[in-house]
């Protein structure tokens, strides 16, 4: 019985019942007594100076409670940035202020200028339209290179330029890298764009601020991936509310993909306004607002060069990237193009010398921050594209070229500061060749040709640093927060358990897989374990969910807390059975004195903990509740190999994905079904980026893709039935579960496979001049490429 729901079981997701029957409790489902609604007046120009705001007519509109502008936030903190990058000269990045409501200037379309609080949402919106703002429009900077040009308009007048930082990594390697390039037998160069994306979780952002005059406590209900982080950032840096007077609750959250990690102005506004007005204040983003206020993702422009020797060994790698920060620094923005990107440039290969240069640039666009994969997709994409191009230039098989350069011995210290603990890239590639039936490609190619279609095959590898944590390491890298995780395990008298975790679940299935871990350790039914998360008043201070860290870091904290529970329970059992605690064994939910037939059920011992009539009170406190904080010693390094087959319609340029295979090494697996689901979702997002999605601004900073009419999301019909495999398992060596994290892999590994496949299809059809097409590979772009 216990094993059925334990580690390794594909238990169905218990949370799906409420999600699929409409009984989930999302932030927008929260409506508090006396609640008012806020609507924001947002800038419709990308860059401008605010010369005046006249709220008089708006204030007289029906239902208006109060109108706030930037002036109401003078002396109050701005939105903080949680990561500091140091530039090539050793100086800190340029860090502009980020007011809750615009002060003096607007810097992107969607920048909030004023906020109307009214009795109803529609009244608030009506009044927003009655506010008169006098804005002197200024020339906007949109293109990153233009933003860095001499004399370019400055996004922030108080900064010396639009350059946030010029980062070199590893700066000490620069000369050696240049030397290696000078000596190279072959150099492959590729310039590419990693397209800007908008996360578009199904649930838009919502915030409800509440204030209790009797206690002076503030509460924020918000769509967040990490409520404790929001409590810390908003409480300490923006509003000056200590943790014990501030509760942040993130209930059911309908997808985040990174965009709900960050602390947003609307959250601070609702909390602030609720306290000012002494009544709850609610904001629900419209989809149109989401397009111009949720942090965007990616947006890198890169030149990458790969040096090879005469035997096709990679000898050096050099990259130059411009990374768009948007108009302000979102919470973790500076870390994405640097530490989450530069440290991954070695990929799965033993390239000895690497130099990465990143210039982060302010533009008059929405802030850009982490989006599923965050930095690692950008690293993987350029590396796996340049390797493919090199193979083509050298006339060698792209898989063979990769295999030849694989890292094969572990642990492996890369030249970009990280140490891979385990992996087996040969095994995942072997597995891929099998599940993708690469041997049968020629036959499928012929079949496509007979149908008038151009078929192509794209293969690539990926590696990612996940389980984003080691606090001392990320501290050295500029993180301004710790990145451990926490868990409290509370055992109730009759044996049921509540696990309070600092991780947050917004689609990952924690409520199912975390109990599997605990149930497995104790040997009880997983249904006896309940997961609580998302409420800072319940769970101990935790860092939340992102960077594929929940099981590796949060799960490990749960293991540690459960170990403490078991140790104490054994002492109680030993006392009752008059044995030594060292002789107590716990198996299948029973405590046994080794070598005897004396035993006690799990429930007997938990009851004794709370009804301590026969209890070692002189040695042990009653009760059974333990907390653990877990901080690992390293990242985890999931890796894998992906293959995509496409067909291109030669007449229209339309690309269809015919098959997609993914062989991943995630270390140990707790729930294979959930892991496959995470990979499926990641692949859909990666295919979306490769073929469909792209956020486009015009030269004046107007968002051209401001709705689903122009921003193309992947749909079921755009993706194939996947072939995924995670049987190659090299367990992580430094966390107790041996797990590596699987949430981002699909999104990281899939875009290069798709693009490699399309380029392959065109090359095979004789379009030999087509060595690269920038994503998204829309029909018009592919057709244009074929026109030469």
């Amino acid at each position, binding site marked *: 019985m216990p094993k059925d729901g334990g580690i390794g079981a594909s238990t169905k997701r218990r949370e799906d019942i409420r999600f699929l029957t409409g009984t989930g409790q999302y932030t927008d489902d929260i409506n508090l007594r006396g609640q008012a609604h806020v609507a924001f007046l947002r800038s419709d120009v990308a860059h401008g100076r605010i010369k005046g705001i006249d709220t008089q007519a708006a204030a007289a509109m029906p239902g208006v409670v109060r109108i706030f502008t930037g002036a109401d936030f003078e002396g109050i903190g701005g939105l903080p940035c949680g990561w500091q990058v140091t530039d090539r000269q050793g100086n800190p990045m340029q860090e502009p202020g980020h007011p809750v409501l615009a002060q003096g200037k607007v810097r992107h379309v969607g920048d909030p200028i004023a906020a109307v609080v009214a009795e109803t949402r*529609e009244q608030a*919106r*009506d009044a927003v*339209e009655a506010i008169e703002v006098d804005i002197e429009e200024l020339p906007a900077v949109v293109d990153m290179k233009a933003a860095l040009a001499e004399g370019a308009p400055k996004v922030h007048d108080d900064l010396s330029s639009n350059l946030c930082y010029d980062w070199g990594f590893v700066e000490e390697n620069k000369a050696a890298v240049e030397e290696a390039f000078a000596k190279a037998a072959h150099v492959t160069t590729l310039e590419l764009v990693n397209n800007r994306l908008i996360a578009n979780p199904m649930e838009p952002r919502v915030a409800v601020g509440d204030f209790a005059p009797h206690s002076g406590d503030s509460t924020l209900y918000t769509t967040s991936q990490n409520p404790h982080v929001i409590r810390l950032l908003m409480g300490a840096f923006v509003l000056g509310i200590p943790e014990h007077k501030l509760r942040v609750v993130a209930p059911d959250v309908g997808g985040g993909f990174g965009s709900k990690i960050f602390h947003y102005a609307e959250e601070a506004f609702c909390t602030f306004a609720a306290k000012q007005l002494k009544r709850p204040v609610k904001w629900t983003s419209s989809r*149109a607002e989401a397009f111009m206020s949720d942090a965007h993702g990616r947006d890198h422009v890169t030149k990458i060069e790969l040096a090879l020797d005469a035997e096709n060994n990679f000898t050096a790698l050099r990259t130059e990237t411009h990374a768009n920060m948007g108009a302000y620094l979102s919470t973790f923005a500076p870390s994405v193009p640097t530490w989450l990107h530069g440290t991954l440039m070695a990929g799965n290969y033993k390239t000895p010398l690497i130099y990465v240069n990143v210039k982060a640039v302010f533009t008059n666009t929405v802030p850009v921050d982490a989006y599923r994969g965050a930095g690692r997709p950008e690293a993987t994409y350029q590396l796996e594209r340049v390797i493919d191009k090199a193979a083509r230039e050298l006339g060698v098989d792209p898989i063979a070229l990769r295999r030849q350069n694989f890292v094969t011995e572990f642990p492996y210290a890369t030249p970009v500061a990280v140490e891979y603990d385990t992996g087996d890239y040969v095994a995942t590639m072997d597995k891929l060749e099998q599940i993708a039936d690469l041997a049968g490609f020629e036959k499928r190619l012929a079949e496509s040709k007979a149908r008038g279609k151009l078929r192509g095959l794209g293969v690539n590898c990926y590696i990612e640093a996940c389980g984003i944590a080691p606090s001392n390491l990320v501290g050295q890298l500029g993180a301004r927060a710790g990145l451990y995780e926490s868990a409290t395990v509370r055992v109730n008298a009759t044996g049921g358990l509540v696990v309070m975790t600092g991780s947050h679940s917004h689609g990952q299935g924690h409520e199912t897989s975390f109990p599997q871990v605990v149930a497995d350790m104790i040997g009880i039914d997983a249904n006896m374990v309940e997961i609580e998360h998302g409420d800072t008043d319940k769970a101990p201070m935790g860092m939340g969910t992102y960077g594929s860290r929940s099981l590796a870091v949060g799960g490990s904290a749960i293991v540690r807390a459960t170990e403490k529970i078991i140790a104490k329970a054994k002492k109680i059992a030993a006392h009752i059975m008059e044995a030594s605690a060292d002789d107590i064994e716990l198996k299948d939910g029973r405590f046994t004195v080794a070598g005897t037939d004396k035993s006690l059920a799990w429930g007997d011992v938990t009851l004794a903990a709370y009804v301590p009539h026969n209890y070692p009170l002189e040695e042990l406190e009653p009760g059974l509740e333990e907390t653990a904080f877990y901080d690992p010693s390293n990242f985890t390094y999931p890796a894998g190999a992906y293959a995509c087959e496409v067909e291109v319609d030669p*007449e*229209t340029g*339309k690309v269809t994905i015919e098959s997609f295979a993914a062989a991943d090494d995630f270390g140990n697996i707790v729930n294979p079904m959930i892991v496959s689901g995470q990979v499926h979702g990641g692949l859909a997002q990666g295919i979306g980026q490769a*073929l*469909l999605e*792209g956020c*486009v601004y015009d030269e004046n900073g107007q968002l*051209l*893709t401001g709705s*689903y*009419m*122009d*921003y*193309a*999301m992947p749909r079921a019909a755009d993706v194939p039935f996947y072939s995924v495999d995670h049987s190659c398992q090299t367990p992580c060596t430094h966390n107790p579960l041996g797990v590596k994290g699987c949430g981002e892999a699909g999104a990281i590994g899939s875009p290069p496979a798709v693009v490699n496949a399309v380029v392959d299809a065109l090359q095979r059809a004789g379009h030999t001049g087509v060595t690269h097409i920038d994503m*998204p590979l*829309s*029909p*018009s772009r592919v*057709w*244009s490429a074929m026109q030469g």
Partner: protein
Amino acid sequence: MYAFDFERPATIDDALKALGAEDAQALGGGQTLIPTLKSRLASPSKLVSLTAIPELKGISTGDDGTLCIGAATTHAEVAAGAGAYPALAALAGNIGDPAVRNRGTIGGSLANNDPSACYPAAALASGATIVTNSRRIPADEFFDGMFTTALEEGEIIVEVHFPIPQAANYQKFEQPASRFALVGVFVARYPDGVRVAVTGAAEDGVFRWAEAEAALASDFSAGAIAGLDVPGNAMIGDLHGSPEYRAHLVKVMTGRAVKAAG
């Protein structure tokens, strides 16, 4: 949305009366109008729903053999019920998604005349007649450029009459985001000639490609248009495709439609 009054009359007369109010507007399936209202891009004083008027609904065959479709007939009903005109049924069955098809109406689509919509191509290629409460308008005189038609203020479409062709087909190349037509071509062959209508491509909205019609009249094969230049109408250029790409697609889609029509 701004506040508005709402009426759901049961007869055409009552509908016209209700539409007489200042800034009143007809509501079909709401699949274009409701999103517009939600974005606060329109502020009618009153919406007059046309979906409860029996005379505006349903599909029948007229005395002259034409297929008559009530203006308030949904896309889904046309997809299921226009078996007499398979190309038209197929077109309706491929508009949007099931939710859109279960609400959106043919009258609303034609009245809206979105330059990327599907129905205008069918109406124009079929030489359909748009019957309103006061007159009969040939399709050739109905479409007046992007989002503009011959309809007068307060005039509503009652029915659309489609002469049934000997052979027809609609080829829609979808814009990747909206899934409207980036280019859509409807080809219909009648005893007295071939009509080719193109949607999605041109800045002036749906148009007939006269050269292709002439070529296909004498030789109804994809090869017949191979040598033609794509019409000179000003093509739309946007982030989904350049004017050249659209022009190219017009030809490809026309060829495919001819081939599929057989």
